[in-house]
């Protein structure tokens, strides 16, 4: 087990199902994929990740499935020709995995209330109190740039998914242009949302390079460092060097 962060507390969970939901482009998939890796690193025996994104055609967690599989993570995605399909395919294995409750299951859900609607069809399988549903917040996205927008997002997703949030993930970023200040401003927004919605800030996530700065030494919430796994084509080989 490798700790990537200096003295920060990594997020831990007592629940066996982690549902990662959020606005479009909040960074859900990247969070879900990194969280799965983190769970394996932290010693969870069985980790599975299911890609429930039926709204995005590209940049879905399934694109990292090879890397995840190599870490021993079970990936539940459409395969073969359906891997790239923009069809709303929900595999029966997803329902099975939710109901079996073996190990930890990470659900990577599509963006906004539209993407979260898929949970509604599965809502009968979730046992009350057995899951964490986390809202990934990016304050640099147009519809979640302020408190009202975030609260609306919570409302919209809860009504379309028929599930209740249990926490907030502060993931404010601007991709390669992210600065420590941007991430900290985002955390402030997440705290405001937390106060108004009564949901705890479950953790802060951000690119490893950013959140390893000293500015984050005194942050009082757990921190999940992210390593980008869903890359753009011109980024891939540059990263290899």
């Amino acid at each position, binding site marked *: 087990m490798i700790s990537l962060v200096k003295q920060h507390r990594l997020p831990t969970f007592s629940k066996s199902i982690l549902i990662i939901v959020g606005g*479009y*482009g909040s960074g859900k998939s990247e969070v879900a994929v990194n969280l799965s890796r983190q769970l394996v690193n932290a010693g969870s025996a069985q980790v599975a990740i299911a890609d429930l994104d039926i709204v*995005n*055609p*590209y*940049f879905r967690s399934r694109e990292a499935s090879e890397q995840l599989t190599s870490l021993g993570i079970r990936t539940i995605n459409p395969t073969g020709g359906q891997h*790239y*399909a*923009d069809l709303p395919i929900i595999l029966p294995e997803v329902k099975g995995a939710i109901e079996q409750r073996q190990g930890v299951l990470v659900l990577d859900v599509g963006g906004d209330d*539209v993407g979260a609607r898929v949970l509604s069809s599965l809502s009968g399988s979730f046992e009350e109190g057995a899951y964490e549903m986390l809202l990934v917040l*990016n304050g*640099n*996205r*147009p519809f979640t*740039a302020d408190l009202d927008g975030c609260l609306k997002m919570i409302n919209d997703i809860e009504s379309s998914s028929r599930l209740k949030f249990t926490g907030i993930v502060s993931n404010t*970023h*601007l*991709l*390669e*242009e992210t600065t420590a200040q941007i991430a900290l401003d985002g955390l402030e927004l997440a705290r405001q949302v937390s106060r108004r919605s009564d949901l705890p800030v479950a953790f802060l996530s951000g690119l490893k390079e950013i959140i390893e700065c000293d500015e984050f030494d005194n942050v009082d919430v757990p921190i999940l460092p992210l390593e980008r796994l869903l890359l*753009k*084509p*011109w*980024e*891939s*080989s*540059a990263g290899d*060097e």
Partner: protein
Amino acid sequence: MAKVLMKGNEAIAEAALRAGAEGYFCYPITPQTEVAEYLSKRMPEVGGMFLQGESELAVANMLFGAASTGKRVFTTSSSPGISLMQEAISYMAGAELPAVIINIMRGGPGLGGILPAQADYFQAVKGGGHGDYRTLVLAPSTVQEAVDLTMLCFHLAQKYRNPVMMIGDGMIGQMMEAVEFPESYEEPPLPSTDEWAATGALDRKARIIKSLFLDPVGLENNVLILEKKYQQMIREEVRCESYKISAENKILIVAYGTMARICQTAIDELEADGVSVGLFRPISLYPFPEKEILREATRKNIKSVLTIEMSMAQMMEDVERAIQGRRPVHFFGRSGGIVPTPEEVKEQVLKVLSIKRRTAKKK
């Protein structure tokens, strides 16, 4: 305005609003549907018109009707949908109407796939529909550039009273990048729409907006009027960019859109390995930057040109035409939604260099 993180499709939608678009007609198709979803929320907020039509065929013709009012209107679609729109695009070109059409390209032919491609180059640049006409075509390579070019499209459509197209591969539409919108948007002066729009025959003669000229002399005359505009576009609207072009380059890569960005990564890495390569990126695909490519390609140090596309040697025809046989033009491309990696590009560059060396030795 501060930078925000936006998906290409959303950024394009917002840019259109900033450029004064008052009407948007759409039909869902991956990978551009986010434009429609975004505008279904935003258009009513700004008092604009949002309408989802029954087909791309109808949508493009709604655009035709809407453009006749003189207002700024646009549509977005992806490859198969754009094919259906060609009818109205030809008619709008014939009737001299301004409209903006944005194609977030996916792989073809046919229903193809949903992954990024550049295979609609011929369709966009060489006409697409029937008849003697051209559409002005711009191709962004970043989300920020997609924003800037979207705004420019509306200006050029009005300036030339001609359909203007922006083509971005699926990557442009789907990826997230930080973008900034200009605080205020100022355009160079444009001719008044009062001169041509259908606004009712009050205190003036009735106007007919049409592309029908049954008399061949009349039709040829209309074609010549259009041709004059296209010549003006060639003089005034060529846009291009170069990257690391220097006297050290042995090869000149020509690529556009997402492909150009991948080439930039490859060029940086090759540079680190001691291989100097320059990149020429056409931004306007019609008019094609012929003179500019010729100038860069015929520098003494350039031995060969390598065209790289996410399609099968479509742009290469224009590159060859521009270079007039004065340098060998090589091609590398992937299709069907496969995006070449920087590794593959590097490999191709080295391959072309070795071909050059071998032929040199034989002599």
